[in-house]
């Protein structure tokens, strides 16, 4: 039952991620002929919003290092996710093995 519950929840997450990709349609290019970007970062949208609320605001500090390209940026994001996922995988694997060994020693009578 638990296993079904986990599987169902993971499927739900995949659906939640995939659904917007299918639901949101790319709008037609604006009057200036520029392509409208979809699925941009919300952080960037907020940045633009600051510009419309207080047009005079100028950011007073710049990032020290900026990833030289989008690819390098996604490399670093992937690295971050891989580090985390790697550790969780290690914990899961070692816990599962530990549980299996424990139940084995309990089943087999010790001589």
């Amino acid at each position, binding site marked *: 039952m*638990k296993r079904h*519950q*986990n599987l169902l*929840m*993971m499927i*739900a*997450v995949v659906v*939640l*991620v995939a*659904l*917007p*990709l299918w*639901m*949101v349609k790319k709008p037609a290019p604006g009057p200036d002929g520029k392509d409208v970007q*979809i*699925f*941009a*970062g*919300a*952080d*960037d*949208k*907020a*940045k633009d*919003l*600051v510009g419309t*609320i*207080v047009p005079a*605001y100028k*950011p*007073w*500090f*710049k*990032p*020290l*290092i*900026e*990833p030289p390209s989008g690819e390098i*940026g996604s490399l*670093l*994001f*992937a690295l*971050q*996710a891989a*580090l*985390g*996922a*790697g*550790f*969780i995988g290690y*914990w*899961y694997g070692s*816990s*599962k093995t*530990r*549980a299996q060994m424990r139940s084995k020693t309990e089943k087999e009578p010790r001589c």
Partner: protein
Amino acid sequence: MHIMEGFLPVKHAIGWSVAAAPFVIYGLYTINKRIKEKPEQRMLLGVAAAFTFVLSALKMPSVTGSCSHPTGTGLGAILFGPAAMAPIGAVVLLFQAILLAHGGLTTLGANVISMAVVGPFAAAAIFRAAKAVKVPFAFSIFLAASCADLLTYITTSAQLAFAFPDPAGGFAASFTKFASVFALTQIPLAISEGLLTVVVINALVRFNSPELQEMKVIAVQEVQA
């Protein structure tokens, strides 16, 4: 929920940093103390930190047509208490601010407050309240993690509205605008985070129930049943 580098006025940047520092320092103190007393919980602390690493790296699309990412701080807050998540969240934010130009050093304080203080405290409080009124275990985890995620983004919206009030409508009008960018986008992501947190907790209950009982996350009899 990252406020971009330089996108908070100097006074706000300093104010939020000063506000965030004690949480991070106290969090480090509680983590050190706990690891000294219960070294066997180190692994779980690693899992909580790793979960935050993974989730905050995943930028997911949302129904509003923009992308955002979950925070992953609810899990650790439920396991180790909210204070422990402040330094962990700060490490993630620092990594992204320095290497990825995502968020920033001047906005680190504000981002720590929203992601690593408000979110975790909300998660712990909601989890406890849900347990008190006998909400089923898995659902109370889901509620705590997803509400914490959402509240993080609402906090960011409030921080930005506070720094940039609308010339006509003031704070409220500005807050509505920022919340429509952040909070609406976040709703499906918060649900995803809630579900993933339950998945991990289910695994923890299966493999680490002695530790969870000690941490008072699950009651002793729940495991025997």
